[in-house]
């Protein structure tokens, strides 16, 4: 599986799309668009998992793909939309760092991911190498998104996006035990539920999901 071969190219392509979608998540201002991008990312992740299942010949990855499709591409985005509708957040447009600096930081993060991963993975299968670099990019971009957003929902989305990156890494590493992937997926859902509960609580308590309001209430603040 080297450059120019189909399995590699497709995996590479799907990973690249995920990174691109992460960039979309990073700069998109509108909440609904962010959720849309996140849903697409989930879908791409499912495709990547399915592709890996086919390439590696490990059927349990289909399960992973299915979970990703159901949870990441459908369930969670739908729930997010419902949440947004209920909390009436359509018009709230959240800007944080500014789009230019965010993108520059994002590019730097991707460069770092590649710089860190590629040199040390010389003994690993080449496809996995690329996959790891892309997955790390997605993870770090998700983290960056959490940093640049002040809105609790978007922070949850960032966290979920990070998890997408994790799954991408997990499916990329051939032969990861199924149970780990299953429970990871289950925990992502659980974490989402917990995050959703919090968003509700925050909204209920502060009439806003802007965590700037939250920080005023830190215990022991002078």
């Amino acid at each position, binding site marked *: 599986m080297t450059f120019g071969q189909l399995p590699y190219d497709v995996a590479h392509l799907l990973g690249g799309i995920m990174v691109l979608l992460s960039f979309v998540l990073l700069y998109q201002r509108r909440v609904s668009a962010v959720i849309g991008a996140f849903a697409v990312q989930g879908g791409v992740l499912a495709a990547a998992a399915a592709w890996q299942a086919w390439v590696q010949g490990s059927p349990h990855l289909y399960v992973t793909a299915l979970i990703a499709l159901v949870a990441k591409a459908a369930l969670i985005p739908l729930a997010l939309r419902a949440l947004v509708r209920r909390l009436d957040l359509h018009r709230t447009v959240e800007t944080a760092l500014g789009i230019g600096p965010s993108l520059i930081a994002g590019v730097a993060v991707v460069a*770092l991911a590649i710089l860190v991963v590629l040199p040390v993975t010389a003994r690993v299968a080449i496809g996995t190498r690329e996959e790891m670099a892309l997955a790390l990019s997605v993870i770090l971009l998700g983290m960056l998104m*959490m940093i640049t957003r002040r809105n609790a929902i978007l922070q949850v989305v960032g966290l979920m996006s990070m998890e997408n990156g994790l799954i991408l890494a997990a499916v990329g590493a051939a032969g990861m035990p199924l149970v780990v992937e299953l429970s990871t997926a289950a925990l992502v859902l659980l974490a989402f539920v917990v995050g959703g509960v919090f968003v509700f609580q925050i909204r209920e308590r502060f009439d806003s999901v802007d965590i700037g309001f939250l920080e005023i209430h*830190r215990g022991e603040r002078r």
Partner: protein
Amino acid sequence: MLTALASLVGLLVLLAAAAVPLGRRRQGGAVVHGACLAAAALLALLAAAALAVGPPEAPLRLPLGPPWSRMVLALDGLSAWFLLLLGLSGAAASLFALGHPPGPARTLPPYPLFLAGMALTLLAADAFTLLFGFELMSLASWALVAAEHQRAESRRAARLYLVFAAFSALCLIPAFGLLAGPTGALEFATLRTLPPEGARGAAVLALALLGAGAKAGLVPLHAWLPLAHPAAPSHVSALMSGVMTKVALYVLARLVLDLCGPAQPSWWGLPLLALGAASALLGALRAALEEDAKALLACSTIENVGLITIGLGLALVFRGADLAALAALALSAALLHALNHGVFKTLLFLAAGAVAHAAGSRALGRLGGLVHAMPVTAACALVGALAAAALPPLSGFAGEWLLLQALIAGWRVADIAFQVAIAATLALAAMAAALAAAAMVRLFGVAFLGRPRTPRGAGAHEVSAPERWAMILPAGLTVLLGLFPAPVLRLAEPAIAALAGPVALAPARGLSLWAGDGATAYLPLVAAALLALAGAALAFAVRRRSPLPAARGPAWDCGFIAPPAHLPFGDPLTQPGPAGIAQPLRRMLGEALLRARERVDMPEPGETRPARHAAGFRDPSLPLLLAPAAWLRERLADQGERLRHLTIRRWLSLSFATLVALLALLAWLEAR
């Protein structure tokens, strides 16, 4: 014998546990203190036996302690010597507590624990046990210092005390760690085989000085001592001042003189000399200025700790210069003075406790004339005060005589830097001794002589019989130790031989103290006998010539008129108070060394308010040491708080930055 000692310590710990339920009963205090008395007396007996017949050879291994370092106990000349002091003072203090009205129940359990901690420290033959006992002793005495925790100054003293105790441990543990090096050995027998050299040795010395010095009250780490020692109940103050500081000095001697090996250079003694001299001077001066009887005694403890440290430092200097006999002389001075000071300081604190109880205050300005109401206490206190003032033939003089002789012999070190340093130390030690005499005269004169200063003080009464005996016994011991220092010192010979070199002998011949071959001698018994003879002959002769008994009349008082009826103790203005007696020294030395200040608030003509004169001093260690430390801590805390006030997003950024930084570091490391 070790088994007996170990079980004694164990019994004291059990007693502490039993004291919790006992404290609720009426006779609980009597039981606990009685048991402590018995235990302390036994400790003294066992220690004396060990000194007389030679300590047991084999160490005792206990199935206690952490798995990697089971506790090892041993007894050698040095520890037995200090154990003797612990037993003697502990017995006196317990006896005093037995007769004293019981304090709050919470003071009962820590007391046996305090004794046990000190005994354990002395018996320890490995670093863990030593520190364990050391900190146990600190923790137990903290509970006693905090006994009157409703008073804010008591709490402050307790806090400072415990913080300094922790500081000691945090210095001593690395000292042992450095000593052991990578081997991690903790047993003294092993540590002796690994003497540190060069910078490592210097670091051990510095840490030992900081750690043990902070506990012993060496300047500049003494700020806690005049606060904490007076805050505890008097019998505990007696032990803290008389014994606990000695335990700290024992640790210092053990570490620096014993465990670091005999091959250390001469200059090791210089820091000890400098700190000792500074402590002696500052302690004595503060004692001469303090206006609280127990604080005064605590400051006098600083002075004596300084003198003992000078002795230890001199021993190091002499040993480094291969002058074993002189090293033995200096070491004997330190050991003898440690014992003597322990006994007479116990006595003085007990007397101060008796006064505080009987006259309702320990502020010198509220006492006076107690020699009439409390004759026994006054007599005992006089013995203690005269010993503390280093007057022959009492015990204080014997130790100081040895110390001065050792200092005078300092010129035999063939290096002018050492000679000048020792000469300067000599001057400071002599000055400290004179200041101590001034402080003791002031203490006794203001508290016991003159006229009462308050109605409560005038209504004082003599204390109970056990309390009286608790003072009479150490007073008698002070006299005995003064008369027979040489036989006592010979008991310390194993310790001297172990620390100063195998050929070193105690500087004692027969009944006299001997400052080396061809040098001078001090014959206390002869001096005492001649003094008594001269006194008796004098009294006889004067009586023959002047047989009339003395008549009594009102004091002349330089012609001041008799006081009006509403001033039952005479005109207070014609009796100098503690601040007045301190005035010359405050002006001569205090202004320079202690930032002493006097302020007169003189009303304008026509105003009716009285003029006021206020005098006070500030110990330089507070503004120079503690205040900057607190300031630094506050600034650091400010910075820490700024970090805490970051927003969640910034915290995420920080995690992110940490990750990125670590990755970058990794990349750099791999690229190298």
